[in-house]
Structures are given as C-alpha cells and as structure tokens.
C-alpha cells in the first residue's frame, strides 16, 4: 500500500507536505518543552541538545508515517 501525502493549500498556494510536517513537529516540540523541563530531560543525557534534536526528528518521522 502506498502512503499518500496531502498538500496543505493556503490561499491557492500548495505547501509541500514536508514543510507542514516540519512546522507541526516544531509546534508539538514547543508545547512539550515545559513537560521536558519538568521531568528534567536535559539532565538525563550527556548531550541534551542532540537528545532534543533526536526527539524532534522522531516526532517528524512519526508525523510523516502516520498522517
């Protein structure tokens, strides 16, 4: 089965699915930040910024896979 990607249409302009996935993943990541701070996410890793980037890539991949 082939996965079909839906394009976002803003005022007649087609936006590539990758852009909408990236923007949605950023939005979700920003909403998750207070929770990450609360659980002490940055203290769990030796390179917290890379861990946060990995989390973002995971969310981006899941969005692309599931939607």
């Amino acid at each position, binding site marked *: 089965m082939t996965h079909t990607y839906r394009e976002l249409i803003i005022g007649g302009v087609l936006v590539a699915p990758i852009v909408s996935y990236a923007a949605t993943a950023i939005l979700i990541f920003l909403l998750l*930040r*207070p929770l990450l701070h609360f659980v002490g996410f940055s203290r769990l890793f030796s390179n917290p910024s*890379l861990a946060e980037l990995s989390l973002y890539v995971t969310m981006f991949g899941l969005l692309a896979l599931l939607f």
Partner: protein
Amino acid sequence: MQVNATSTAVEPRPLVFAGLPASSWAFAVRTWLACLLALYASFWLELEAPSSAAITVAILALPTRGQGMEKASFRLLATVIGVAASIAIAGFFSQTDGLLLAVFGVCVGLCAYAAGMLDGNRAYAAALCCITIALIAIQQIDSPQLVFPTGVARGAALAVGVLAVALVNDVLAAPDYHPVLAGRLEALHRRVMNHIEGIFRGEAAAAPTAANLLRDIAAMRPELASLTTESSSGTARTAAARAAMVDLAATLALARALSALPVAPRPVLGLSAQDDSSSGLLAICRTWLRGELIRKNVDVRSSLDALRGGRHPFRQWQAPLYRSRRIAAESGVRAAIHFTLIAMLFVITGWPATELCLSLIAVIIGLSSTAPDPRMFTKVAVVATPIACLLAGILKYFVFNGVSAFQLLAIGLAPVVIGLSLLISLPHRILSSLGRLTLVFTLAVLAPTNPQSYDPQTFVITCLFVCLSSILVFAAQLLIPPLSNDRRLRLLLGETRSELGRLDIQRHHDLAPEEATFRDATRIELIVAAGGGSALNRWALDEAMCCFDEAATLRRCSTELNRLATGPLADVAEAARAALARRNGSAALAAAEALRKTAAQRDLNVDSACAALVLASIAFDPSQSASGSVEKRQP
C-alpha cells in the same frame, strides 16, 4: 557583605593553538562544516539559490548554540514578513517608476525605525525585513511575476542553512551559552558588591563608575533571549538571568541612595531645632537601605544559582527596554533619504542592471541601522567588499579554475571560511564585524552553484556593484551624516528630564520599581554609548545619574505611599504625596517625621516609607547631602 570567595580562584588556562584558543578553532571548523552541509543539501535538492544557504550559515555563525538558534528563528520570521511585504509591494506598485523607488525608500526608513526601537536580534530581524525586500522585490524590479518564486527559493535556502547550522552545532556539541552568561553575571555581581563595599568604606561613589556598571548590566539584556532557544530549561534560565540582571540594577540604585545620605544630620531645611528627630530618620533610612542591600544580594545569588541549575527564580521580573522614538525616527528618516538619494542617482545616470547594486545598498543601510555607529559599520563594509571580491576571485579563477567537483569546493573553501571564522571569533568588535562581512560578501560574490559558473563578465560586474554599493552608502552618509553622538546625547537628556518631570507620584505604575529602574539603566547605557570620550559626556553622565537617582527614589516613595493609602495612615500618606508632587524636600522630610510619629502612636512599622521620604528630601535638595555625604567627606 562579603564578595564571593570563588572570585579569586585561579581559572585553568584555555588550550591555545597558533595564538587562538581551541574553542575558536572548533567554532571555525563547525562553521566550515555547516557551510559545506548547507551547500551539499542545496545542490542535492536543486535549490535555485544555494549560495543563500551558505550565506545563512555565515550569518548564523556564532560561538554558542543558543545564540545561533535565536538568530535563526528571527531570521526565518523576518524572511516571512519580508517576502509578504515584497509580494504586496510588487502587487500594488509594480511599474510605477519613481513611486516604486519612493515606496522602497519608505520601507528602508520604516525598517531602520523599527531597528532603532528594538535591540539585539530583534533589531536584526527588523533590518532583515528591509534586506529581504531588497533581495526579492528590488532585484526583481523589472519582472514582478518572479517575486513569489524568488521569495520561495530564498525561504527554502534559508531553511536549509538554518537546519545545517542546527545539525552541526547539535552533533558536534557546540557549547551552551548559559555558563558564559552566568559567568558574566557573576563578574558583574562581584563588581557591584565591590562598589558597595567601597561606599561602606567611605570611598567616593563617582557617577561614571556607576554609569559604566549600569551600562554593563543593561548590555546583558539582548543576550538573555538566546537562553530560551538553547534547551527545554531555557525559559527558566532566561527568567533567572533576567531576575539577576534587574536586581543588580536595583542594588546599584540602592547603593547610590546610600552614598547620598548625609553622615550626620545637618542644620538645614529649617530643622535645626529638631536634630534628634532628623538624626532618627537618617538612622532609620540607613538601616533600611542596609537591609534592602542585603536582601537584594541574597536575591541576586539565588537567581544566579537558579540560572546555573536551570530552575525558575524565586521572583520573576520583566526587563523593559528604554525606546527613544525620536532617535529611532530621525535614524529612519536619514536611512530613507540615503536610499532615495542613491536610487535617484541611478535613475539620472540610467545605467543598466543596477538593481543588484540598489539591493546591496538597501542591505548595507539596513545592517548599519542595527550598529551602534552606522558610519563605522559602512566604513567596515567599504573595507570588507574589496577584500571579499579579491578572495572570491582567487578562489574562483586560481583555486577552482573550472572544476565542479564538490570535494574540491569543500577543500578550497576551507582556508577562507575557517580563517574568516577565526576573525569573527576575536573579541575586537571591528575585526569581528570585518570578518563576518568579508565572509558573507565572499560567499555572495563566489555564488557557489551546480554546475559552477565561471563567466568573467558576470564576476567583474558583480564585484563592481558590490564595491560601488558600499562606497555609495559611505558617500551618502558623508552628504547627510547619520545621527551624531552629541545629538543623541542631547535628545536622551531632554527625554530623561521631561520623563522625570512627568513622573506621576499619584498613579499606580505598570512596572515594579525594580523594573522601572532597569528601564532607566537601559537609557543610561544609551547615554554612555552616545557620550564616547567627549567633554560633554562627564556633564551629561552626572545629570543622567542625578535623574536616575531621583526617579528611583520617587518610584520607591510612590510604592510605599500606595501601600499606606488605604490604612489608618492614609491622611499622612496623602500629605507626603502632596509634598512629593511639589518636589519639596523640606516638606517631604516633615511628612516623614509626621508619618513616623503617627505610626508610633498606632504601633505600626513604616520604616520603609520614612526611609523613602528621607531619600526623596535629599534628592530634591542635593545641598543637604553636598557637604555631609559619604562621598564628599573623604579627602
């Protein structure tokens, strides 16, 4: 009040290679790798403007991760706004000849005005709106139908550049900014505490010393936003750093108030018969100030601990910025005139293909509006552009010379990008600025594409226009000089005086006294920056610091009297407020005495209000402290 003992600890010497610290070399290598990654991704995605991705990397090349990410977010936001404005301009004013150029001039002026009203990367974002309009709408002045595709191509290249910087910084573990910022705040805290210890020892509390301290504290403000983008704890760290910064400014204001207190009660203000009560009020004031200083010191230490630990501070403050509309408007008008003058010159000469030159002129004017000294920035651009053309020419026709392999591009770019990144990392502001401008212009003139173009005619015309643009902006600034420092100083002092005159003691203020004091500190920063080394500076600084002290005292009184406004001491508080509204020192002192007596009869503690009123009486009548204050007492 003891200074932190760790301040004297010897720090380990950083690893140095070829005279530069290892951190600078790591930063330079990261910039080179990010540049290569951005170019490789742009070639792979077949983007129309791959050089924009490399230029984005050069612009976002900052030593720490948080700084780069913050600038990147503002760059993306400003690009979106700039593209939207470009589409609107092309839609409404296309093919209107002179009117279109006038609209571009107005846009440049508006962006320069906005840049003058903001600071840090926010000001850069305002300038970038103008730059985006220049690079999209002005470059496509004869083909408005290409404005939208050009905007999309630029946006895509910028996104690739930002992603490349983020990936390289994250994977190669670029250093965090919060330890640097915490170190700087701790150093400032030590300096403030040393200043206060000096006041306790009876040393002179000179206005320039306090003004320089306030300038250094206020200068931290634009850098705090970088912490937010750094990690999930960034928001808490920003709040902690902001609280420490605002409390440091408030501590300095309290220290200034303490230094202005007379050592002994003076037989002035018609109170010679009441020396006992006057002495009592002074003692209350001194005790209260000492208590406040100790409390503030504890607050600053707690905020610094929260900054290190990534926690929210105990108390959160806003850090408002002083904005001078007049200065921003004058700078905006001058920027618009500079652009319009040069555009008119091009119209008169009728040279073909000058849109590239005109767009670069808008870029230089936009960027210079974010610099403290626009003319110095233009001078640096005049030096940087020929160097950039020379480097790009050497790379193109001697190093690459017809090759198109990416590996050779990577090797050829290494010395230029790494060398100029090392220059960027230097602490010297002009050299750093020269390095960044040279790197950006080198990549712009080289314009890496796939396959690489080696047309000598295009290269020569590009070099000519790049050099001409910086020279024309310099000439326009000679003809109509940017706002001079003396003019800035006079405008700032005039605004300071009028704001102090309008300070309403009756009204509940939106800002807490500490926050308003910090806002005044940002104005002192502007005054110190505008003063330079001129003779006017010392006089201006003294007056600015007097206004700073008086405003801080009045706000303190307002807060304390508002607290008493609804209680049993409302009538006495109202009388004190009337004395303050008249700016009458002896009446304020009499009101303080009345307040103390009434409170004593009702067994209430009003030490803070009494202390604030005593300070107000001294601020309104400086002669009271002139012969008896701590600072004047010393030989």
